């Protein structure tokens, strides 16, 4: 157990990544009750946007200069994609049966993956993403790779900014109001279309940040990266209470921790020696989800929705 601090750090870092992506799911769901399955692909597109910016810069640009530009490019690409998807794929279906937009989302997810796979040069294999150069740095018994610095700084900043936005700005409060009661919000003169676009855009911007963080830490981006990440993030969003932005981050952290700890320690529990390690970590994450939902059906921070008869 002497590596516990290290495993905790692993879990928290991974969890922050999940959390950033989960925010996109949660914001969209909170406002339009749509599970935007294509959100994982929005992350992926953002990653390739950032990569493009890196490629466009003259060789030898230091990463500290390149990183902000990559981030901007990534955010631009993923936001544009998300907004276009909302406008042309989801909005026309807003009054269709609940499952129709879901199929659209699955279609969109396949479409975006294949678009990158087929047309982005050399994207049939993973493409190399720059890493922050230098040795890992250590803090006591915890070692963190240098590239994770970005995530460690960016994730809390993003959360702070989002918190400020939803509580302090007019648009943010309108967004909260819409998510709680869309009909009333509409009556109060809130332009719900604008709010929905905003939710997609903010989710996509966070997705791009997550994509850059992902690229930096694993040194690559590939056209499938959004699938697993999206799946995990969606789980995180549900775990934290879908619709709640802080819940999304909390759910992400919990999921990341669960995976790291399951990989590290489950097999040391009595009778569990066959059911631990990396092979079972996803199973344990899922079990955690079920347990949480059984005890708190609305998720960790979700609010109980009373069905008004």
């Amino acid at each position, binding site marked *: 157990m002497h590596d516990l601090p290290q495993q905790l750090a692993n879990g928290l870092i991974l969890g922050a990544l999940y959390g950033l992506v989960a925010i996109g799911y949660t914001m969209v769901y909170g406002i339009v009750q749509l599970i935007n399955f294509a959100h994982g692909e929005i992350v992926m597109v953002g990653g390739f946007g950032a990569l493009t910016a890196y490629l466009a810069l003259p060789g030898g640009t230091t990463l500290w200069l390149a990183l902000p530009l990559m981030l901007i490019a990534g955010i631009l690409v993923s936001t544009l994609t998300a907004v276009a998807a909302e406008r042309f794929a989801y909005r026309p279906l807003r009054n269709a049966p609940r*499952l129709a937009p879901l199929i659209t989302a699955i279609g969109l997810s396949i479409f975006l993956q294949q678009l990158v796979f087929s047309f982005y040069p050399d994207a049939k294999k993973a493409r190399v993403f720059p890493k922050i150069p230098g040795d890992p740095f250590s803090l006591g018994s915890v070692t963190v790779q240098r590239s994770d610095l970005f995530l460690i700084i960016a994730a809390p900043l993003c959360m702070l900014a989002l918190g400020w936005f939803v509580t302090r700005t007019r648009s943010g409060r309108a967004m909260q109001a819409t998510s709680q009661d869309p009909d009333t919000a509409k009556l109060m003169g809130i332009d719900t279309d604008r709010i929905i676009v905003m939710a997609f855009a903010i989710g996509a911007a966070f997705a791009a940040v997550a994509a850059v963080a992902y690229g930096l830490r694993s040194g690559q981006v590939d056209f499938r990266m959004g699938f697993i990440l999206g799946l995990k993030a969606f789980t995180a969003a549900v775990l934290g209470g879908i619709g709640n932005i802080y819940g999304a981050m909390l759910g992400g952290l919990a999921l990341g921790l669960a995976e790291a700890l399951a990989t590290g320690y489950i097999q040391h529990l009595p009778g569990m020696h066959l059911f631990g390690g990396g092979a079972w970590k996803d199973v344990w994450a899922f079990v955690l989800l079920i347990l949480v939902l059984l005890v708190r059906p609305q998720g960790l921070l979700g609010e109980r929705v009373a069905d008004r008869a």
Partner: protein
Amino acid sequence: MTTRTETTPVIPLPATAATTLTGLGALAVAASAAMSWTWTSDFPGDLTYYGSPVGLQWLAVAAGVLTLALLLATLGTPGLRWAAPTRSNNAVLYAATGALAVAAYSVTSISTELGGLANLEPGGWVLAGGGLLGVLGALGLPLDRRTHVPLRILDKRLFLLLPAAPVGWIAAHAIPGDKPVAPVMTALSGALAIAAGAVLLLQLGHLANSQLRLGKVDRPLPAPRELPSWVEVLLIVAAFGVGSYAITFGIDTDYGELFIGYLLLIAFMIAALAGSGLLGRLRALTLKYRPVTTGAAFAAAASFPFQTGEQYASVATNILIFATVALGLNIVVGLAGLLDLGYVAFLGVGAYAAALVSGSPASPIHVQLPFWAAVIVGAAVSMVFGVVIGAPTLRLRGDYLAIVTLGFGEIFRITMQNLNGTTGPNVTNGSNGIPRIPELNILGFDFSQTHALGGIQIGRFGNYYLLMLLVTALVVLVFARVGNSRIGRAWIAIREDETAAEAMGINGFRLKLLAFALGACLAGVAGTVQAHVTYTVTPDQYTFADALPPNSAFLLAAVILGGMGTISGPLAGATLLFLIPKKLEFLSDYQLLVFGAALIVLMRVRPEGLIPNRRRQLEFHEADEPAPPAADDDTTALTKAGA
């Protein structure tokens, strides 16, 4: 509110001239099939012969003959009148357009694949000319049209793409080729160009719509002539015979060009036959003679292996497996309204259960149960899993079910991979799966052998096809009977409004669990057959999303694309979803891209699915009819269904 319609031609032509033109065009298209279309056998199918049509040429014959028949029927030719009760020339126009589509597609694909129009032989020219002539003539016929269709303009911002495309092109060329970003820019400018093209095309479509103003027929239809009932029964049988032949033709198409031509023809012909009122009439007949219809449908399906070889029987068997599982999912999604994103896992549970007790040398359980027992085991184990997954989650809000089922699907795959003796107890051999599952032998009927049935050789896949058809029939039976019973009504009530359903005394949780378990059980049965057909079960066959069915995403797509809550919907949806990626292999890399785009577009155009539930159909198209002028139809007030 009345919809205003008129009966006028689009192109002012004298009536006889228009009729003659259409007829001549149709004849020319059909006749061209007897001529050589191109000089070289390099084009798939070898269209170089005179007097012996193949492939695309048969499609041209069908298109021409159908157009002609519809034209004659609309003119009131005795004997054909029954087939065109609406007497609408729209049907002729659709058929003629279908002929033109086949012609245009054939000619373009010949000239692009072989490099230039010079590759066309006289037959090709006759074909193209005939197609054009037919449509021109049909546009001159008095058509049923709406009096006013406002021109829709796309979102103005989209037109920004038009100038953006050339700018992108210039930018891509301005970058020196050795920069790492250059290929990215080239790809980007290509994408811009494609998007700009799509926008233009869409706008052109709207323009055409506002010019053509084609509408539905709202004249009262003449009562059909009373036919003796044996004639009516014969008509049903004939209709199913034709349908079965059409589907067999589709499955048997052995190159992509033919399949595309086939799809074009089928789409337009269905539109034409619907416009002529023939489909409505046949539908009325099938409702009148339900048992005959069921028997005819079953016989038509069963005749498949007798019409074709092993190669296509193997495809058809897999289609049946996929379609059957989709129909099982339709109980869960379409009737009870539960979103199951991991349904393929139940197919897997059934397949694994059957494989374990099949006596395969790789199975750690060294028993060989007879097949009927294996089916029961598969169904029971699947059902148990359904209950185990459902019991804790069905009490939760509906959307949580989505993630839990999605998770379950993935966990199933991972667990099957882990139970390999190293990372878990040895049950499934991990990723090696359970191979060498023995062939079935039911009552001395050895499925691996070729049997002569009625003088026709039925091979291994033919045998399994017929077995699978029995399973399909079972699922259809269960779906039809349960769907239209006290239980089925309760499911639909839950789907519509769970709170109200509970207030009517329905135990929502128990009924949802029942739906979940029944769905799982049926998928499990299909799985037991699948295990024997493919010889092997491995974890990687049961994924959430993949290039080819069956997987959970495709299953759901088949249900929703086909039409929720119906029987024929998922069957049709599954067949299409199976065949399209398979037949479009020549698109290779772009096949999935096209599939993704098609899903988006189809949901946009027809959210109720290809074969809508009678109820849903009412719901969706009611709103179209009053057509308030100048309303943005994106926001046409439809009440939220279900919610």
